[in-house]
């Protein structure tokens, strides 16, 4: 699921359950999840982690470039 679609669904559900104060936490979760999806190990999801090249940059580093 795309991050934006997911975030909208989460916020709507939280609102419907009477938890509007959850919205900022869900936005932070969406931001964190977007960074997780940018991580380079996802590029080689068909290979064991041990086969990935060592020493690649983190998603946080990539995002800040």
């Amino acid at each position, binding site marked *: *699921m795309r991050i934006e679609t*997911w975030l909208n669904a*989460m916020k709507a*559900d*939280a609102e419907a359950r009477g*938890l509007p*104060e*959850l919205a900022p*936490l*869900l936005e932070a*979760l969406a931001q*964190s*999840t977007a*960074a*997780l*999806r940018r*991580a380079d*190990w*996802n590029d080689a*999801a068909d290979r064991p*982690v*041990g086969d*990935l090249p*060592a*020493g*690649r*940059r*983190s*998603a*946080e*580093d990539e995002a800040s470039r």
Partner: protein
Amino acid sequence: MNSQPLRLRTIGDVAPDVASGAVSASALTEACLGRIAERDGDLNAFIAIDADGARAAAQAADGEIAAGRYRGPLHGIPISLKDLIDVAGSPTTAASNVRPRTPAADDAPVVATLRAAGAIVLGKCNLHEFAFGTTSEDSAFGAVHNPHDLARSPGGSSGGSAAAVADGMSYGSIGTDTGGSIRIPSAACGTVGLKPSYGELSCDGIVPLSRTLDHVGPLARSVADAWMLYDAMAGRTPRLPADMPLPDRFRLGVPRPYFLDRVDPEVRRRFDDALARLEQAGVEVTEAEIPHAGDIAVIYLPIVLAEGMAYHAPTLDRRPEDYTAGVRLRLEMGRYVLAEDYVRARRGQEVLHREVAESLTACDALILPTLAIPAPPLGVDAVEVDGHTDSVRGLTLRLTQGFNLSGHPAISLPCGRTPDGLPCAVQLVGRRDRTADLLGIARRVEAAIQDNDDDGGHGGHGGNAGNAASDPAAT
């Protein structure tokens, strides 16, 4: 005999006196109960105190020792337990109104092994509700206060345990650590806290937070005390500090990128001082790197949320109002974690495990600060560090949670204080399944810091990395 108040002596120091009969288990127990009566109104470190049970156990220990049936250095030593851990006959509240107040049927395995070693259970300590927080503020029993400054948090989630050990209410305590919950309060209160390798000590009989990240371990006043408690928890017979295996030489690696990017200036100063002291003592210090360290928080979050939700979903559905507001909201996030992201995070966890293991091929242990900031004021959600405003939760977890993900053993030990008298701490991370080796290195580090910590500087008072606890009430 040691001139310190009885309640502040280390286990390693007092155990020979207990063995010889010079000090009784009953005297140790009364010293702790007296301090609890005197100070727990301020600290709120305990949820339940079993004074009668502790006194009876102490009398039994004194009888056994007098009859020549001494079990070892923990015999007759009063300890406390985080109230997340089952003790037969006592409810396990997890600091929550959600938990039933029915007594646990059995001791958790780690409690049973400690009792078999002769330890006396004084009571159960306050914590951040369900261990899901780093300040010990959100508790059905009220916030825990830092013994060094009552307006500040003791860290968390094992905040009551750390406060009790630092203040002389118990000689050691048992906590749990899912993202830093033993090491963070140890750093904030000036105690030693050990998270062993993942899976090494049984978490049976302990309320879970995140089963792939949960650890159990000791909080103590010295590395040797932590070693004795750890050995007993593992079912081994603890030995006196003089018998502790120590390395002749070792090399430490400093993982500066990410781990030292955002650190309070005074914490950094104490850390740099500690490195200088270690180099003066002949320890080789090199650079280390964990390339994906910047991804630690984004890997950690989906795992802890999804696994936390797996446990809490039924009670969040039925009795949401019984949770404290902050814990309830954070747990609620777990409803929304997608399976695909949980899998990505678990794969990231493997990457981190590999990178930490690789960094430890060039050194014997990593060394870094435990907490990026001194103990934060109670009631504060965000603080400024190096010109950035960050959440207290994010900053307190920043340097510890990576080693819950990787499963490597990690220990926090004091390295002096800020000018305001707040403890600072270094963290050592050892090779997976080599916790005993890490403890040996930690004891050498503790001695090097202590030997050089009498300079009258910030570390002079409370730089008690070694065998002498300081009295927080004196600060």
